[in-house]
């Protein structure tokens, strides 16, 4: 359980954040650059002092102006993985990893984390000799070995290219699933959040704009200015129902519908999230026939998001809300309006591994080729 209510004046920019949420799994803190994400996380970690308010984690007050409490960062037991690796340059990887470990910490834990992160072969090296991805893995290991109750991650992938991101993401997924470590994950990249997070906290102009499940918040029209138009899409919560190896497809079920995607290397009954980008969804008024698109669902239009651009986003309820991005021209020729029945079409191959996020993970979902 985390309970935050803090205020701070940062010279022209004001943080006034109030949020209460449980600390299971991965909580994503999402917002544009300059929205106050890092400031808020620094306050939680104790590196920045709020002007007023309180921070309580698992019933332990870490900061409370009313009661005069301000626990030093070293006593908060919060791990922090920064945007830059912040490894100590004058120490070996081994010494970095052990820096925060409690005296007499069991070696079993060390071995487990080192193996989980795949950094055993790096132990004797110096940070300067590591690649960006390796550095960030060591930084994660170092934070973990300090035995924190929760780990804060401030855009840990921001400085990495996409290949390096793929190297790290599975590890972060495993921290949560294998080690049960609660994580507050700061990001402005929706694809990372879909993949990792169970819960989303939206921050905008220093204030908490919304808290909820990833599925719920990404489909809300009023939050679109924050969740981003280009990134627009919807998130479905589905279960693996069976694999059609002959055709190379996996069938996922959601709300008594079947969604077909390229074959996934996942066990049956695995729950996962699928992200469907609005631009991969099209609309028809009659049930389409003789087409290549595998996923066709009947539904009802619930909302239309017009902002004057040639594109329009239409929200269709097919048992779950799905955003479709179509041209304004199509909107008027098809005469679409809320309440109208329509068919939603989604290409199976639009669902790549970047679109998937596990819910009860025990390995990373990936498209088997």
């Amino acid at each position, binding site marked *: 359980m985390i309970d935050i209510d803090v205020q701070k004046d940062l010279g022209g920019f004001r943080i006034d954040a109030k949020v209460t949420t449980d600390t299971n799994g991965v909580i994503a803190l999402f917002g544009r650059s300059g929205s106050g994400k890092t400031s808020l996380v620094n306050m939680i*970690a*104790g*590196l920045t002092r709020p002007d007023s308010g309180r921070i309580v984690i698992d019933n332990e007050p870490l900061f409370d102006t009313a009661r005069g409490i301000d626990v*030093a*960062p*070293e*006593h*908060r*037991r*919060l*791990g*922090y993985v*920064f945007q*830059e690796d*912040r490894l*100590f*340059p*004058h120490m070996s990887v081994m010494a970095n990893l052990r*820096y*925060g470990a*409690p005296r007499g910490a069991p070696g079993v834990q060390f071995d487990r984390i080192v193996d989980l992160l795949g950094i055993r072969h790096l132990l004797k*090296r*110096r*940070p*300067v*000799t590591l690649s960006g991805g390796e550095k960030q893995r060591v930084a994660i290991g*170092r*934070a973990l070995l*300090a035995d924190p109750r929760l780990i804060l991650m401030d855009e840990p992938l921001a400085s990495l290219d996409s290949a390096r991101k793929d190297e790290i993401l599975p590890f972060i997924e495993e921290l949560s699933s294998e080690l049960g470590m609660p994580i507050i994950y700061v990001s402005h990249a929706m694809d990372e959040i879909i993949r990792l997070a169970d819960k989303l906290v939206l921050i905008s102009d220093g204030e908490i704009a919304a808290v909820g499940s990833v599925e719920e918040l990404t489909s809300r029209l009023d939050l679109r200015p924050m969740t981003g138009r280009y990134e627009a899409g919807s998130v479905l919560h589905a279960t693996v129902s069976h694999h059609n190896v002959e055709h190379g497809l996996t069938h996922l079920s959601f709300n008594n519908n079947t969604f077909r995607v390229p074959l996934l290397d996942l066990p049956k009954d695995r729950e996962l999230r699928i992200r469907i980008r609005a631009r991969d969804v099209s609309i028809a008024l009659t049930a389409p026939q003789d087409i290549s698109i595998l996923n066709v669902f009947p539904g009802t239009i619930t909302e239309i998001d017009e902002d004057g651009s040639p594109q329009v986003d239409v929200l269709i309820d097919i048992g779950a809300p799905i955003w479709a991005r179509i041209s304004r021209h199509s909107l008027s020729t098809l005469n679409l309006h809320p309440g109208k029945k329509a068919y939603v079409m989604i290409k199976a191959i639009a669902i790549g591994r970047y679109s998937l996020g596990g819910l009860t993970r025990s390995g990373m979902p990936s498209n088997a080729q």
Partner: protein
Amino acid sequence: MLGLTEYETAALLLSLKVAVVSVLVCLPFGLGAAWLLARMEFFGKVAIDALFHLPLVVPPVVVGYLLLVLFGRSGPLGGWVFDHFGISIAFTWKGAAIAAAVMAFPLMVRAMRLSLENVDQRLEAAARTLGASRLRVFGTITLPLMAPGILVGVILAFARALGEFGATITFVSNIPGETQTLPLALYSLAQTPDGETGAMRLALISIVVALIALIISEWLAKRIDRRRGANR
């Protein structure tokens, strides 16, 4: 010793003693001053900064004279020290060490301050989140990362102390075996008829000592570099 005359040996050993002691005395104060200037914001910082740099710009004779006024047996500090500890400072090697320390102080502070300003405070913050107290962070992160600057500061201060002349001769005079360091001995010989050979020998000794100090510092700097993995 090493073919040196008794006179030369005395001057050399005294010089080394004075320089080493002055550097050791300087170190904690230099570190504190560097911290004050690099990490703290307070009213009057500019004035404090100027005060620390004063020995660098004021004629050494002036510094020596002020020290004499302060630390003389009847001076405010000298009288107090003598009354409480029975130690007299003026006209002793201790006074020479103080003069050298004061003159070397600005050089040491400058080097340390620069290196401290270059220590990434984000690393210190990271160490705090890993459970390290301020003191542990200072000892395990700040100090090791400052090491090259501390080394430069120590070498500069040592060289300055070894070469100190004006403040020393004004403050503690030129007493063979007590306050006559290498530069003072050289000065005396240069004033003496037929002293040229002796003066040249002392000049050579000074050069050799300085060179040895430089070589040791280079070697230490390389070791620090290697420990930080700069060249694997």
